[in-house]
């Protein structure tokens, strides 16, 4: 590009340039590189606005002094820069993904016939009905343990009856929704990530796209809907067995009567508490489905990749569930729900 070995300093003045495409930017940068290779110095000056942005994007920077800058300093800046870049990139990706989900949801609501309802039924059965025993067992134990722990303290004050309040409120507002969501995250979240991940690596997802079918409509939407329908129902059931666990302790350990325990529970737990728990469970369902499906669809690298996605889906989901639960508890408190 540069003829017979020039030595000296060249300036490319771009102050008059208003617009430029990537090809020309790359060409100019190549030219500067060529100049350097031949012992000359080249510099782009006067670039402003979009032109400047583009050149920077293509890696142009002010000419460095000939001796290299101390690597430690550059390293630190670069590390901080890269970390910020990485975080922004991840946030951007998350925003993109949520945007896609919202757009897909609106489309699905406008054209509900395109949602594969057969799959929704199949998935609701597998991830709702089949989860009943484990959800029931764990929540029963949670109610039991909670009541048992509280009973020692309350007995000292002669306030045994308050165990009904304590178990009732904790289970309905907090532990029922959260424990159920965590179980479902481990059960269904893992399954979603593994199923979609396997479909990804066996090119089934690509095959769908090739047929003009959206993987969101065909794979993600049914899982979303299935969880949004089943998780609140599971949570209601979890509330019931959790209370039952408390009741068992109340009757057999604290010698309370069924009637008094029941009445105390009714006076403590209101419809709003149950509603708050159900609202949580709907949001939890969305978090589980969104993260698990995202991890599944982002799988690469064969069977090993599926394993990685599954682990990552469960860990990330549980982390976000707890985070969201804390935020919601706080918000509900402010609004008195």
């Amino acid at each position, binding site marked *: 590009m540069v003829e017979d070995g020039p030595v000296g300093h060249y300036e490319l003045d771009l102050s008059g340039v208003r617009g430029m495409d990537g090809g020309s930017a790359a060409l100019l940068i190549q030219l500067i590189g060529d100049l350097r290779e031949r012992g000359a110095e080249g510099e782009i000056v006067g670039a402003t606005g979009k032109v400047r942005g583009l050149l920077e994007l293509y890696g142009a920077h002010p000419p460095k002094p000939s001796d290299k800058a101390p690597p430690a300093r550059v390293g630190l800046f670069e590390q901080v820069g890269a970390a910020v870049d990485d975080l922004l990139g991840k946030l951007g990706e998350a925003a993109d993904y949520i945007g896609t989900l919202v757009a897909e949801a609106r489309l699905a609501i406008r054209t509900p016939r395109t949602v594969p309802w057969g799959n929704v039924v199949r998935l609701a059965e597998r991830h709702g009905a089949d989860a009943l025993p484990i959800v029931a067992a764990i929540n029963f134990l949670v109610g039991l343990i909670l009541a048992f722990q509280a009973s020692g303290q309350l007995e000292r004050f002669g306030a045994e009856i308050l165990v009904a309040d304590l178990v009732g409120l904790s289970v309905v507002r907090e532990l029922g929704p959260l424990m159920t969501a965590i179980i479902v995250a481990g059960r269904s979240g893992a399954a979603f990530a593994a199923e979609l991940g396997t479909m990804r690596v066996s090119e*089934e997802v*690509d*095959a769908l796209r*090739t*047929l*003009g079918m959206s993987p969101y409509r065909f794979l993600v939407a049914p899982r979303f809907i299935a969880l949004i329908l089943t998780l609140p129902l599971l949570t209601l059931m979890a509330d019931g067995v959790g209370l039952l666990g408390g009741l068992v302790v109340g009757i057999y350990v604290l010698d309370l009567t069924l009637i008094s325990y029941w009445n105390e529970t009714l006076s403590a737990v209101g419809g709003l508490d149950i509603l708050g728990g159900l609202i949580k469970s709907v949001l939890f369902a969305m978090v589980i489905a969104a993260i698990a499906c995202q991890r599944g669809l982002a799988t690469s690298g064969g069977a090993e990749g599926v394993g990685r996605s599954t682990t990552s889906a469960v860990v990330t989901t549980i982390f976000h569930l707890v985070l969201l639960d804390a935020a919601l508890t706080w918000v509900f408190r402010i609004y008195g729900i």
Partner: protein
Amino acid sequence: MEETTKPQATTERPASGEAAPIIRFRGVHKSFGDKVILDGLDLDVPEGQTLVIMGPSGTGKSVTLRHVIGLMQPDQGQVEVWGKDVNQIARKELVALRKRIGYLFQDGALINWLNVGDNVALPLRENSKLDEAEIREKVEHKLELVHLPGIWDRMPGELSGGMRKRVGLARALITDAELILYDEPNAGLDPEMSGSINQLIAEIADTLGITSVVVTHLQSCVRVVADRVVLLEKGRLVVDLPRDEFLASKHPRVRSFLGDDPD
């Protein structure tokens, strides 16, 4: 609907270079991490041609096919299909474009919870207005074509790799696509089945004048289906020849490729 716009049956293929290219790669670069897969790939596929892509495994043949239907985007460069830049057109247009293309994936890529018949019927159910009886008839016909009659109710998990691949082929053929991409159509098949799949690919290309791109390792496949053969290595085409010249070529890479052929 698409039947009416399909080119009429022709027995003569246009000589390469004369017809407008259906697929056009210009300076396509693609890397995964710091692993460069495509390094400025240029490739034209004219209408009606059957192009065979050969190359060592892991060299980016599947990646190349994926670029054709926008399943992957180039880091740099353009991919045009029917004169449209696959990565610039609107979503709707891309979906419409994909519907005109048949794609046989390396392992069939059958949807695991649908049975064989429903898998093959999927493109028709999604993209055509045919009634159930017509769909059934078409599907059964395509299944016969790939020598798998009467397996409508079997699930993909119960099939051998070769059978899955042939069901995938039936699915790729069901919409009468104008461009078909075959990713290793005969890998994992016994020689007899492999031969009949080759015949089938050649027949489809000849009788319907369809443009095809076939990724294969087999000389037998090249002999039967190819109009033109390219050898992809290190992200570029190192050889690009009409079939007969390719088979006779003294190029060392071609020789070592064809020499290892078990057929």
